[in-house]
C-alpha cells in the first residue's frame, strides 16, 4: 500500500474516518446459526445442544465466523430500491476509481465477546489505505484496505474484520 500521493482528495479525506455506522436490521437469531452449521456440516454441540452451550459458553452463541452476516442487509426491503450493498466502502472505491470488477483478497477476522441470539449488532467501516495502480493477471486497478468494527447493544466489541479488496478493469474492458 502507498501513501496518499496520487489519490483524489475525496479519497484522502475518507482515510481513517469512521463511516456507515449502522445497526443491524434484525437481532441475532438461531435460524441463521443452524443454516450456517448445516452449510458446512458443523456438528459442534455449542450450536446444537443447549446443555453444552450452557456449560461452556453460558448459553447459546453464534459461530464466531458469522460475524459479518448479522450486518448484511436484506436483499430487498420496503422503501429500498435495487440491490443493497453490504461492504459499502468497497463499492465506493469501485465507483470513485471507475473500476467495474473487484475481488476480496486477504480477509482477517478478530473475535472478541461472543455473539449471542438476541444481540443487536452494529458496525462501522473505516478506509485504511489505497494503493498505487497495480496490474495483476485479473486486470489493472488498485488495492484498498477496509476495517469493519462490530459491537453489540451493550457497546462491547464483538469483532473486527479487515478486508483487502482489489478493484480492477479487465484487459480490453
Amino acid at each position, binding site marked *: 500500500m502507498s501513501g496518499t500521493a496520487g489519490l483524489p482528495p475525496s479519497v484522502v479525506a475518507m482515510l481513517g474516518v469512521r463511516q456507515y455506522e449502522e445497526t443491524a436490521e434484525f437481532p441475532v437469531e438461531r435460524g441463521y446459526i443452524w443454516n450456517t452449521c448445516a452449510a*458446512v456440516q458443523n456438528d459442534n454441540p*455449542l450450536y446444537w445442544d443447549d446443555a453444552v452451550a450452557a456449560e461452556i459458553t*453460558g448459553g447459546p452463541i453464534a459461530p464466531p465466523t458469522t460475524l459479518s*452476516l448479522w450486518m448484511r442487509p436484506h436483499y430487498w426491503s420496503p422503501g429500498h430500491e435495487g440491490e443493497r450493498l453490504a461492504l459499502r466502502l468497497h463499492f465506493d472505491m469501485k465507483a470513485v476509481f471507475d473500476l467495474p470488477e473487484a*475481488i*476480496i483478497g486477504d480477509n*482477517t477476522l478478530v*473475535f472478541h465477546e461472543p455473539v449471542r441470539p438476541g444481540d443487536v449488532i452494529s458496525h462501522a467501516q473505516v478506509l485504511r489505505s489505497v494503493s498505487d495502480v497495480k496490474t495483476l493477471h485479473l486486470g489493472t486497478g488498485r488495492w484498498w484496505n477496509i476495517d469493519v468494527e462490530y459491537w453489540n447493544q451493550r457497546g462491547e466489541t464483538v469483532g473486527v474484520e479487515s478486508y483487502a479488496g482489489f478493484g480492477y478493469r479487465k484487459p480490453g474492458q
Partner: protein
Amino acid sequence: MTTPRLLWSDVSAGDELPPLSVNMTATLVVLGAMASRDWRPMHHDHAFAVHRQGLKDIFLNTPNQAAWFERYLTDWTGPHGRLGRMTFRMRASVFPGDTMVIHGTVREVETDASACGWAALDLTMRVGDDVKTACAARLALPTTPDDNPWTRRGERWSP
C-alpha cells in the same frame, strides 16, 4: 455433560491435523451463500458466473470459506476451542464438482501474559494439488481440564 476437549498441553508445533475432504456441490455453495446472507449472483447464478464473469461455475463465497475453516478447527479441538483470529487469502475459487480438502499444521504454541494457551495454525483449502485458499488461525485451548477459554473477557482475552 462430558464433551471432548483438546488440551493445550497435548499440542505441539509441527502437529498435523487430520484432513477434511468434501465433495463440493452447487447446493453447498448456494446454501453457504444464503446462510451468510451473501446475495451476490456469482455464488448462486450459474449463467452470471459463466457468461458475465468468465468462470466455469458459481463458487464458494468468503464467509462460507471461513465457516469451513472454523468447522475444521473445532472438529479438532472440541467445543472448548475458541477462535481468536483468522487471516485468509483466496488464490482461486472452489467450484461445484471439486473435491475440496482442508489440511492444517500447528505452527507454534504459546501462552500469553494472562496464561491463556494459544495454538497458531496454518491451514489450506485445496483442490487436487492447488491451494485455493490459505488461512492462518490463532486458537485458544484449555490449559488444564478445568480451564475454559470461553470465560475469558477484557484484558484476559487477547486474540
